[in-house]
């Protein structure tokens, strides 16, 4: 009884079985062709038919056509509800039936003189029926409908015009004036609109008189008609943002999105557009406020501090609203700000603390992670006060940890790890928080995330004490660890790090316990860990370990015995490098080399040459990982801020991401270049490629008749520089021939060897011109140079559709000057990570220093970005973060030069009178290179 009644009451039960397709089809033919037409029956049939179609059922094209013609016969009946359904059905059939144009005249008649009930439906259906040959006939109709006083009709016409854009843009363009008129007009629903339905009959007074939705639709259409004309777009934005021209909040949001798009393309317009955006920060719709905040936050580098406060104030207000979605959106934006400028949101800390207990999990998670970041900023700014707040937060979280689920804990763990990485001084508290958590019960994913966090901290915390503290905690953990995979990872780490600590014997004891107590998998990794201690520490440690290992030769498990035997053999023979190695192959390039090797069987005659794969020292490996870590933090922000202008900017932001992604990608790219170059016989005896610039530099505007980018390839051993100019012909009607680039160095020590020109570029083709130079060596001192570039070519017109040129046409020769290219100190460097900058800096000799004004920037933040990218070095000790109110800052940069020596730069920056002045102190292992760094222009 109970189940059957439930079934009957289930809202979906009635829609359970679809009617039979063919039965409906037959009935339709019968009813629609009847004379006279029974309107009620036909309406019900059409409804059934629509239900089938909406369910994804499709009729074969012949049936579809028959159906369409029988439906077209219903036009003889005047019943307006029937007509409405007829339009809905024809709209759906329009994609499958070819003969749809037969209803064109009837629809147009309805739009001209028909009932208001089905007029909007008719307009929408018309846009599906029209093709490029019939659209002109409907132009007048659409214009009239767009300016119609009834907002429903106007909206239908606007949306339909929008849908017509792909096929008949030229016609729709002529609707611009009507659309503009419509967006500024005030249209109200006809007063009897709702009375037509008994449901609304008595309550018309409570219904809104207008929704202004047509403004949203009109704005969307206008944008698509104008988005290639920036001036027109700016005019539109200015006129619509004045007063309260736009009343519909969706249309305002859309307007803000368009402003965002414009700003992304041209940041200089912020001066004009900021006041408009700022005005939207106070609006009666929270969605509008949020959208304004979101846009401003994603452009925060363009915004002044006092302007920023307005955003924060709005967000602060939004944090307190009852609507969950709004609170979430607000806190998400605050979280985004906290990544770059935690100090700016200190003011909302008390609201954030309140939100920790929010019933919505996502909100409370964001509240905590945001607080963790602001606390960090607080510590740096205000010393002990901030320190206290970190304590407070941690104690708050400790109490909270018991109540929350594991996914949530994992988020918090990641946040704490990031905090510890950015603010190493606070590590003690944070590490103890993590290790406490490690001791509690938990599943594998939770423990893994804690262990991952601790591993990262060991790698990147500069303080040796911190390292020791974590290692000891990990030792304690494996004493009672139920997860073999974690034990194995920890043992591996102990083997790597333990021997370099002050008391290796402490770890040996713990590792040996594993040998006695654990399963074979853990035992075998314990063997390898012990072997590392023996190999590194040597002396009596080695002897003792050999005794321990020889006991394992009787182990029950094969793998353990094998590893023990092998390790003993290596230790006795003193093959230290077999046990521990400082370097690793770059896995990404190894993989690509191997695939390359396997793809061609002719390669199998020779042995795979592993020496071609770049070998990374542990230091370089750490640089890669550190970069990845930091970028992961920032990339979340970049991605979401890109969401708006994605289709236009997809490529650019892709470039940006990959540039920042990691060093290992750069290595791959470099390998590709080296393969490309080695395929060119002229460069065969140049030896190995030392370094290439990764991102191509544009030497022309991207919209030019031809676009030129350049990549610099350095062959340090053979003292050669190869400039690879990539030229794209964007002229649709011209073929370029004999293209070469004349590069004029301003440094006499550079001598041109030869040019490899491009013989021909058809429209939209691109090709490479190579120019080779002999370069001075580093001992000559003056290795910086700038090249003046001129492109020389012969231009011929395309004469036919295949893009051929007239053979008798000699064309005309032309020269075209493009931007200059500089070789700067950064081209000779790669970023390098080291957890202890000061130690490295103090070790290096060859000091040089200079004071420069950094041109074209007005904030410390921008100056740091400029230095970082132009010098191509890695910022260390979190020194690339500047509190926004600071007027001076010390930037620490580290890297490696192409000659293999380390380079360290200490830049003292000061902000005075809107200019950034820097005292740059450079130290390098390679003689004279430090002076090259300081002599560059920034």
């Amino acid at each position, binding site marked *: 009884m109970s189940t059957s009644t439930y079934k009957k009451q289930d809202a979906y039960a009635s829609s359970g079985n679809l009617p039979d397709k063919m039965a409906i089809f037959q009935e339709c033919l019968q009813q629609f*062709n009847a*004379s*006279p037409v029974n309107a009620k029956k036909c309406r019900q049939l059409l409804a059934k038919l629509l239900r089938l179609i909406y369910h994804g059922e499709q009729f074969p094209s012949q049936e579809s056509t028959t159906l369409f*013609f029988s439906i*077209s*016969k219903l*036009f*003889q009946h*005047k019943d307006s509800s029937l007509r409405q359904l007829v339009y809905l059905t024809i709209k759906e059939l329009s994609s499958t039936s070819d*003969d749809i*144009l*037969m*209803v*064109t*005249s*009837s629809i147009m*008649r309805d739009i001209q003189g028909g009932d208001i009930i089905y007029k909007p439906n008719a307009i929408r259906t018309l846009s599906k029926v029209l093709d490029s040959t*019939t659209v002109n*006939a409907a132009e007048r109709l659409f214009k009239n409908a767009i300016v119609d006083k009834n907002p429903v009709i106007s909206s239908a016409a606007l949306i339909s015009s929008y849908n017509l854009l792909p096929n008949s843009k030229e016609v729709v363009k002529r609707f611009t004036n009507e659309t503009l008129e419509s967006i500024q007009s005030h249209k109200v629903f006809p007063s009897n609109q709702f009375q037509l339905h008994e449901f609304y009959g008595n309550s018309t007074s409570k219904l809104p008189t207008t929704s202004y939705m047509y403004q949203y639709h009109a704005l969307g259409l206008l944008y698509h008609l104008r988005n290639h004309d920036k001036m027109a777009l700016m005019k539109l934005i200015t006129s619509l943002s004045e007063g309260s021209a736009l009343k519909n909040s969706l249309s305002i949001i859309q307007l803000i999105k368009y402003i965002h798009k414009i700003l992304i393309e041209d940041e200089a317009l912020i001066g004009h557009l900021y006041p408009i955006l700022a005005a939207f920060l106070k609006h009666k719709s929270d969605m509008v406020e949020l959208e304004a905040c979101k846009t401003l936050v994603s452009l925060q580098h363009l915004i002044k501090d006092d302007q920023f406060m307005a955003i924060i104030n709005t967000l602060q207000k939004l944090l307190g609203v009852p609507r969950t979605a709004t609170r979430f959106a607000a806190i998400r934006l605050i979280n985004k700000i906290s990544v770059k400028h935690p100090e700016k949101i200190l003011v909302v800390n008390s609201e954030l603390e309140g939100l920790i207990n929010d019933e919505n999990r996502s909100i409370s998670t964001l509240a905590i992670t945001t607080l963790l970041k602001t606390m960090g900023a607080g510590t740096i700014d205000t010393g002990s006060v901030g320190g206290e707040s970190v304590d407070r937060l941690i104690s708050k979280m400790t109490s909270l940890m018991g109540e929350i689920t594991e996914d949530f804990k994992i988020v918090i763990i990641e946040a704490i790890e990031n905090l510890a990485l950015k603010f190493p001084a606070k590590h003690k508290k944070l590490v103890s928080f993590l290790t406490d958590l490690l001791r509690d019960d938990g599943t594998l994913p939770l423990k893994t995330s804690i262990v991952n966090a601790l591993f990262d901290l060991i790698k990147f915390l500069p303080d040796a004490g911190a390292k020791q503290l974590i290692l000891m905690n990990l030792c304690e953990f494996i004493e009672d660890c139920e997860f073999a995979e974690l034990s194995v990872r920890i043992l591996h780490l102990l083997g790597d790090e333990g021997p370099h600590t002050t008391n290796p014997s402490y770890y040996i004891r713990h590792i040996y316990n594993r040998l006695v107590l654990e399963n074979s998998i853990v035992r075998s990794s314990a063997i390898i860990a012990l072997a590392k201690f023996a190999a590194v520490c040597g002396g009596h440690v080695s002897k003792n370990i050999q005794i321990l290992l020889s006991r394992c030769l009787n182990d029950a498990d094969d793998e353990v015995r094998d590893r023990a035997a092998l390790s003993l053999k290596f230790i006795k023979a003193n093959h230290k490098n077999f046990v521990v190695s400082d370097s690793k192959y770059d896995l990404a390039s190894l993989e690509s080399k191997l695939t390359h090797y396997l793809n061609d069987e002719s390669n199998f005659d020779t042995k795979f040459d592993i020496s071609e794969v770049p070998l990374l020292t542990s230091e370089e490996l750490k640089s890669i990982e550190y970069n990845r870590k930091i970028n992961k933090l920032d990339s979340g922000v970049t991605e979401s801020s890109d969401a708006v202008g994605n289709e236009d900017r997809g490529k650019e932001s892709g470039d940006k991401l990959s540039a920042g992604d990691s060093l290992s990608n750069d290595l791959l790219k470099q390998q590709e270049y080296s393969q490309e170059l080695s395929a060119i016989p002229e460069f065969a005896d140049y030896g190995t490629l030392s370094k290439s610039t990764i991102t191509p530099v544009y030497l022309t505007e991207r919209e030019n008749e031809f676009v030129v980018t350049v990549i610099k390839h350095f062959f340090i051993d053979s003292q050669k520089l190869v400039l690879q100019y990539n030229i794209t012909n964007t002229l649709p009607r011209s073929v370029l021939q004999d293209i070469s680039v004349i590069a004029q160095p301003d440094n006499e020590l550079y001598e041109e060897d030869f040019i490899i020109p491009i013989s021909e570029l058809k429209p939209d083709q691109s090709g490479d011109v190579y120019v080779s130079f002999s370069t001075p060596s580093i001992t000559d001192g003056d290795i910086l140079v700038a090249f003046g570039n001129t492109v020389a070519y012969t231009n011929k017109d395309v004469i036919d559709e295949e893009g051929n040129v007239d053979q008798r046409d000699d064309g005309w020769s032309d020269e075209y000057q493009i931007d200059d290219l500089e070789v700067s100190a950064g081209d000779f460097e790669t970023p390098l990570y080291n957890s202890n900058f000061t130690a490295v800096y103090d070790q290096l000799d060859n000091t040089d220093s200079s004071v420069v004004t950094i041109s074209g920037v007005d904030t410390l933040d921008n100056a740091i970005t400029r230095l970082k990218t132009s010098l191509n070095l890695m910022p260390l000790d979190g020194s690339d973060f500047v509190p926004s109110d600071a007027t001076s800052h010390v930037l620490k940069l580290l890297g490696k030069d192409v000659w293999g020596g380390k380079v360290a730069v200490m830049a003292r920056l000061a902000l005075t009178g809107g200019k950034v002045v820097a005292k740059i102190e450079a130290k390098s292992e390679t003689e004279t290179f430090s002076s090259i760094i300081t002599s560059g222009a920034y």
Partner: protein
Amino acid sequence: MGQAFSFAGIFSKLWGVQKEIRILILGLDGAGKTTVLYRLQLGEVVTTKPTIGFNVETLKYKNLTLNIWDLGGQTSIRPYWRCYYSNTAAIIFVVDSTDKDRIDIACKELHTMLKEEELQDSALLVFANKQDQAGAMTAAEVSQALNLTDLKDRSWSIVASSAIKGEGLTEGLDWLMDVIKDEQL
């Protein structure tokens, strides 16, 4: 129930009220079909555009309900005429009497159409339209050009008309109603 239904049927046949009569207006493009339709329905001249598809109007005429379909005459639309042939009581074929060049095409289209099985029982009324214009062929000339005399087993008639002036239309329609009443009752 069944009895009541058949009673109604008989009455409707007797008085010719309930039954709708389907009439098609065909002809080449620009012959004046749409003008004829609205002259009949509204009694006035409307400005027309080339019909892409069809117009359909219902009108009462002498106690009969007429369902008149005006199908577009452009070459691209003519193939679709056949989709509307079934249950057609009568065809009104409109000819532009001034268009001597295309009268052969009109003739061909007319005879192809009349061969269709679905139209075997339909009556045919031809309007030799645009008589108001100079140089128009007379009804007799049009009849000859269209080979109307070749038609066997079909009630047909040709009427000289001017849709603009409203001449000839009622005469034609009166003839048509008489034929239909004879045939259907």
